[in-house]
């Protein structure tokens, strides 16, 4: 099993590396994104934004953490259904489905490299923002950040698995995925604190796991919050994960069963 997982990672890396421009272009893209947040931060900070008081009136670190982590945590949600769809279109899924790896791994394995690459891009972005562009991350509690990021990743990957289940049955990427992705970016406080939203809209923010993730990650990285200090939000995130993860696994299992019955498991 471990060798099969590693095989997917190596293959994903080799495929991506074969597109050299795209492979290195992602890091250039990350550089441009961090620079964008830096200059946007300078503009916003020059206006003494009172709404950012709880974040030390600094918009750049606020946006840096929000932007980089939202990209990172939603990678599996965005990429998993796309990689499965790609494998179906290429026809390469069928031959892995007849090997003795579990069907779930054959479906999720092709997306593993994307998540590893996203981790590298996150580290690159944080180093660039913190070390080169001067975002103050010196008081960060990295242990808290790591725990929150790991839990958030599991929670949002469950959404990705739900999307894969959709692809397995309907052969199209989830049409709501883009809409949900955009809504999450808007309501989860990636670009601004959710306190600026009207109360009725803010209620919607609390439905998304990413809202809790970003609040806690900013608290851990910008203010050095410990795990106990993150208590309530961490509990909610754990609760959402406890609901979404088994639900997504059940949905994927059922989707595989339906596709086998229809004879369409490897169809596109």
């Amino acid at each position, binding site marked *: 099993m471990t060798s*099969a997982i590693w095989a997917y990672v*190596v293959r994903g890396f080799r*495929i991506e590396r*074969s597109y050299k421009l795209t492979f290195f272009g992602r890091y250039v893209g990350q550089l441009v994104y961090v620079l964008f947040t830096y200059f946007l931060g300078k503009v916003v900070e020059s206006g003494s934004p009172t709404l950012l008081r709880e974040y030390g009136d600094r918009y750049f670190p606020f946006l840096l953490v929000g932007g980089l982590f939202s990209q990172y945590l939603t990678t599996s949600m965005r990429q998993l259904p796309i990689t499965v769809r790609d494998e179906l279109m290429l026809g*390469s899924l069928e*031959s892995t*489905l*007849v090997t003795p790896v579990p069907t779930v791994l054959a479906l999720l394995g092709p997306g593993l490299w994307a998540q590893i690459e996203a981790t590298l891009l996150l580290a690159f972005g944080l180093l660039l923002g913190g070390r080169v562009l001067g975002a103050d991350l010196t008081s960060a509690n990295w242990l808290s950040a790591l725990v929150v990021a790991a839990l958030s990743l599991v929670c949002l990957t469950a959404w990705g698995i739900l999307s894969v289940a959709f692809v397995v049955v309907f052969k199209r990427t989830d049409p709501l995925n883009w809409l949900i992705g955009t809504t999450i970016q808007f309501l989860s406080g990636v670009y601004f604190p959710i306190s600026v939203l009207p109360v009725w809209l803010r209620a919607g923010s609390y439905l998304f796991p990413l809202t809790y993730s970003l609040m806690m990650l900013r608290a851990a990285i910008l203010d050095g919050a410990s795990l106990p200090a993150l208590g309530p939000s961490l509990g909610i995130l754990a609760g959402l994960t406890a609901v979404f993860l088994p639900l997504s696994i059940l949905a994927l299992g059922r989707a595989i069963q339906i596709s*086998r019955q229809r004879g369409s498991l490897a169809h596109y």
Partner: protein
Amino acid sequence: MHRPSQAPAIMMEQVSKDYVSGGRVVHALRDCTLSIAQGELVGLFGPNGAGKTTLIHVLSTLIAPTSGVALVGGHDVQLEPLAARMHIGVLTETQRAFHGRLSGRQNLEFFAALHGLSRHEASRRMERLLGEFGLADAADRPVQTYSSGMAQRLHLVRVLLHDPPVLLLDEPTNSMDIQTADLVRHLVKDELVANRGKTVLYTTHDLYEMDRFCERIAIIHQGSIAAQGTVNELLAELAAPQRIRVQLAPGGDATMDALDRLPSVTSLRVVRRQPGSAEVEIALGKGSELELAAVWNALSAHGEALLHLEQLDRDGIGRLLRHYAQSDEETT
């Protein structure tokens, strides 16, 4: 020389597969029963749409049967799919297993790992098989630069990489030139089956290929296993009419009536009338020698001058083909 043992490597018992398509039920497989002993090479013949690929997909766990039981290596494909997959190497008709931008070797390394082979073992087997299939020099080139025949050979290397006891080969010589196709047939029959005792289920729509190559043939027709056996056994069982064409001088109505009354004559038609002669095509049931004698007697009894007699369908394989090779759009 390996001898087939008694325990079946593949066993299908009353396997059916129904789909609902466009609001109606399509019977892709109907009560298919098939048993293949270990070390046996069986050809699965059928026209396009007869159900060959569906049957292969059921055995390779890609499709769940609607009813019936299918075992591979003693493992139920529905209840123990992973164990069943450990026993099989599958080459499907629409094979696109490889990423074109990766080399042949890199693609094979991936599949070796999925089959749990150690790097050392994978490397050893890859070198041997790549050499056997004439791909050693191309192994480090991207697969997208391979010809279709080379890619097909690489698929065979992939199928054999983990040394599975059961091979499900769906039209494996597609896209191959004659020499390579012969090489593959030789490898499958003489090396894999005869020497290593592999069990092979080999599909093709080329019955001539199967006649030369397979020990036993199963004919799938409209989703059912219509017949099983050697070509000679199948011909003996064949209910399809044999045809003869006779030229009579002149073909009188009384003669035609006499021929028509023969129980063995299933149809009769005048193909051509010419001054002083008539050409008649007669379709006969089973047992060609006896039936020909009956026709001869009927003609003699009416004093007809038999100018010419031609036995059509002399080619037994051709008869089998005509009998079974009817496209069936209702099955996949």
